[in-house]
C-alpha cells in the first residue's frame, strides 16, 4: 500500500495506491491523521484512483477521517472510486456523510 499526501491551499489530498484491508488501514489512518493535525485543512480529498482492492476496512478508514475532519470543521470528498468500491460504500450509507465523486 502506498500513500501520497499533497497539500495545496486548504486542501489535503491523499492518493491511495494498492489494497485497503485491515492489515493496511492502520498505517494509512495514522499517516493521514498526522497530516490533518499538522495542516488543519478545510477539505480532505481521498483519491481512490490507485486502489486495487477494498473491503469494509475502507469504510472505517473514510468514517474515521470524516470524524477527524468534523472535529476541525472540515469536510471529506471521496474521488475516483470503482463500481465495486462504490458498492461497499453504499452498504454503509457513507454517501450521506461524505461527497462521493
Amino acid at each position, binding site marked *: 500500500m502506498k500513500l501520497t499526501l499533497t497539500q495545496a491551499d486548504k486542501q489535503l489530498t491523499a492518493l491511495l495506491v494498492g489494497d485497503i484491508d*485491515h*492489515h493496511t488501514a492502520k498505517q494509512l489512518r495514522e499517516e493521514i491523521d498526522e497530516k490533518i493535525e499538522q495542516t488543519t485543512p478545510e477539505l480532505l480529498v481521498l483519491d481512490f484512483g490507485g486502489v486495487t482492492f477494498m*473491503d*469494509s476496512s475502507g469504510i*472505517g478508514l473514510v*468514517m474515521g477521517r470524516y470524524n477527524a475532519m468534523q472535529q476541525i470543521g472540515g469536510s471529506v470528498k471521496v474521488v475516483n472510486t470503482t463500481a*465495486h468500491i462504490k458498492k461497499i460504500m453504499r452498504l454503509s450509507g457513507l454517501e450521506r456523510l461524505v461527497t462521493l465523486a
Partner: protein
Amino acid sequence: MKPINAMKMEFLSKSANEGFARSVVAAFAASLDPTIDELADIKTAVSEAVTNCIVHAYRECIGKIYITAAIYEGGRLSIKIKDNGCGIDDVQKAMEPMYTTSPETERAGLGFSVMESFMDKLKVRSKPQKGTTVVMEKRINQRGLHNDARND
C-alpha cells in the same frame, strides 16, 4: 454432491495473511471464469471473514484459520472459513449491520453485511470458546467458455 474440484489451506491469524487468503481463493475460483466483479465480490467476502477471525476470534492470540473451497456443477462455488477462537455469543446480533465490538479500531461492523450482500448464501455457526465457521456460496454465471475445473 461431489465437488468437481476442491482445495484446503490453513494459515496463522496474522493480518499480513488477509491478502494472501483472498488471493488464493480468487486463484482457485478463476477456473470458473468469473467476471472481474464476481471475483471482487469473492475476494471481499473472504477478506471480511478472515479479518473477523483475526480481529475477533483470535483477538488475544495467534491461532489457525482453515479455509476449504469447492466447485460444484453449474458453477457453484462454496467457501468455508473456520477458526477455533473465542466464538460469538450472539450470532444474530453480530450479523446486524454496523454492530461492532471494536469501534476503537475503526471496525465499521459491516463484515457480515458485506458477505451477505456479495455472496448468494451465508451461514454462520458459532460456539463460545469453541470457534466459528462461516460457509458462503456463490454461483458464477457460466458463459459457455471452457472450464478448466472440469478437465480431469
